[in-house]
């Protein structure tokens, strides 16, 4: 299988200057990027740190697939994405997307497409650590406000212990 390596996963701080340099292209009239950063609160709870867990092989293969989709769908020249794994502090960059295009419209649109797909499709999990000492994996199990169309009347959620239920509610959706 050809490895395009447009997607990467790293345990150290994202080196955005180097990532961006790989996109240098004299034809590019526009460069759009997105940086997702660790913020200090989520769903009303004060966050002090994050831990990301990834399955790197599928992150890279599926991330490359997403970028290939963007290259086919938008009039862009190239794109890259890199995601952190491990422990992150407030303000650190967790994910970066960079796109070059002849014109800005396609660069913005492709950048948006890639980050949205990355958040939904890649095997990446985020554990939030709260100022109050609690912690929890970010997902929407048992989150009534975000009932999933594929999971009506989640009977199993009713079986959660009180502690699990509190944790699950507290972490809910991130964005």
């Amino acid at each position, binding site marked *: 299988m050809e490895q395009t390596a447009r997607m990467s996963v790293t345990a150290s701080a994202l080196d955005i200057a180097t990532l961006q340099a790989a996109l240098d292209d004299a034809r590019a009239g526009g460069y759009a990027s997105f940086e*997702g950063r660790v913020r200090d609160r989520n769903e009303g709870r004060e966050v002090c740190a994050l831990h*990301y*867990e*990834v*399955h790197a*092989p*599928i992150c890279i*293969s*599926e991330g490359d697939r997403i970028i290939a989709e963007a290259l086919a769908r938008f009039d862009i020249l190239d794109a890259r994405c890199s*995601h952190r794994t491990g422990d992150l502090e407030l303000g650190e960059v*967790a*994910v970066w997307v960079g796109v070059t295009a002849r014109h800005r419209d396609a660069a913005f649109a492709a950048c948006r497409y890639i*980050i949205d797909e*990355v*958040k*939904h*499709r*890649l*095997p*990446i*999990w*985020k*554990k939030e650590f709260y100022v109050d000492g609690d912690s929890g*994996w*970010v*997902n*929407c*199990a*048992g989150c009534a406000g975000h009932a*999933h169309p*594929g*999971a009506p009347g*989640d009977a*199993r*959620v009713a*079986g*959660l212990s009180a502690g*699990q239920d509190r944790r*699950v509610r507290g972490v809910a959706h*991130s*964005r």
Partner: protein
Amino acid sequence: MSAAVKAVTAEYFAVFREQAGTDRETVETAAETPAALYQELAARHGFAEHAERCKVAVNDTLSDWHSPLAEGDRVLFFPPVAGG
């Protein structure tokens, strides 16, 4: 229907790993698909997620929940993701 028992490796990530108390285990199962295996393991470990909100990979390739399982497969169970 006589379902043959096979040995597969189940691998867990994030909340599944914490709930199972291990990142992988060998499972003797008559399950013919990842979906059926997930039902068995969810009952054993108390996984609260519906399979349709999760993803499954077989031998490091994203897979359909209803693909056939073979002896020796590594079945990776991914809880709902939260990248970015």
